């Protein structure tokens, strides 16, 4: 199997790994870096957003990339959100507003909304809902997620 050697920083930790060229980034994160907070919900379509991570600070779907494309880049996953054991305001708001039920979609939503709030620190509810389009949630009906993002925005401002 054809392989390539890549260097990727994930949550500040450097991984130098030889991987099959076709290995998807999401599998690299889950299998090689053993960071299983990043989830998979699609076959090939890249619609659900459960696999969302940040590359160089931008939310992207890690199922729509091969790991080799991330060579030389910095990745942040949900495991990297809490700093020094301290939950981020967004994470805390998700707990306080009951913004998750099964929690399968949650890591992807956190990684998307974390960047979203940096870009738009004072969003309207419509903007939050629009920002969430790339993350499907089957459990919550989204209302509590919107509440949580609004709370985090307020606390962070």
């Amino acid at each position, binding site marked *: 199997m054809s392989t390539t050697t890549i260097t990727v920083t994930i949550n500040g930790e450097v991984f130098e790994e030889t991987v099959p060229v076709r290995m998807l980034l999401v599998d690299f994160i889950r299998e090689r870096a053993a960071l299983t907070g990043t989830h998979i919900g699609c076959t*090939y379509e890249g619609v659900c957003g459960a696999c*969302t991570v940040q590359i160089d600070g931008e939310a992207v779907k890690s199922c729509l*990339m091969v790991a080799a494309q991330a*060579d030389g880049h910095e990745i942040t996953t949900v495991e990297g959100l809490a700093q020094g054991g301290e939950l981020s305001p967004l994470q805390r708001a998700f707990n306080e507003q009951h913004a998750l039920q099964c929690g399968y979609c949650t890591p992807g939503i956190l990684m998307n909304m974390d960047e979203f709030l940096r870009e738009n620190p004072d969003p309207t509810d419509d903007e939050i809902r629009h920002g969430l389009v*790339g993350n499907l949630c089957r459990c919550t009906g989204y209302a509590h997620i919107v509440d949580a993002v609004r709370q985090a925005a307020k606390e962070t401002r």
Partner: protein
Amino acid sequence: MYPAPIDEYVRPATVADALAALGRYDEGDAVFVAGGQSLMQAVKARLVRPRCLIDLQAVDGLSGIDVGADGVRIGPMTRYAEIARDERLTGACAALRDAAQRVGDRQVRNRGTIGGSLCWNYVAACMPPTAIGLGAELELTAADGGTRTLAAEDFIGGPLETAREENEILTAITIPAAKGSAGSAYKKWGLVTDALPVIGVCVALEAADGRCTSARVAVGGLANGPTRSGAAEEALVGVDAGDGDGIAAALAKAAGEIETQEDLWADSDYRKQLIRSLGAEVTATAFARAAG
């Protein structure tokens, strides 16, 4: 699911290196990957089985938006997110932002590129009709370093078809500066928010004293590929910004002449209705933008 085996991944730094990598493989065996937001779907579904992925992320000079006196020049690797937030894209170019702001979702906009959208030319894609509506010109560079420039409507064919030769790379998209006061707009409708559209309509027009002097109307979401409506363009000329009936009559001509198809999301009549209703809305917006 998982891509079929891939032999090689390369990340060239120049257009020449990218084309050289392409040349090392038989036709179709090496593919460019821009944002990967369409290509990787196809690769994972094993509809495309590349032996080599040529990643364009590091190619010098393919990204960015230049706004100058003779128009706007956009690198093909410019991502939707960058277009969406570029406040210089007003008036004649505003449709670009309309489209980019509503492509897919935040994550897709963070990676997907205008060049990828044009070169893939998916049936429901937003950029192809927008580029046609804006009269964009596409610069292609060949392996020998030669370039040619094509009007977007000559480049874009039926779904998944373009005039790109196998040994070419798209290197720039330019939108010529408008002569007078000009405005454009794009809007789409899909079943769920920001989804790949059932119909998307781009209208670009020039106006003098609130009256249309020339117009381009392009529609996407069609089985035959993005299509201009000559009848609507003609009918719009001479229509006043506030003339709702005149605008409606022009868009009815578009709906009349454009062939629409039926699929899971809408039948052909409803597509025609969308051409009328979206078309009227974007025309009004384009007028407003032309007025400044």
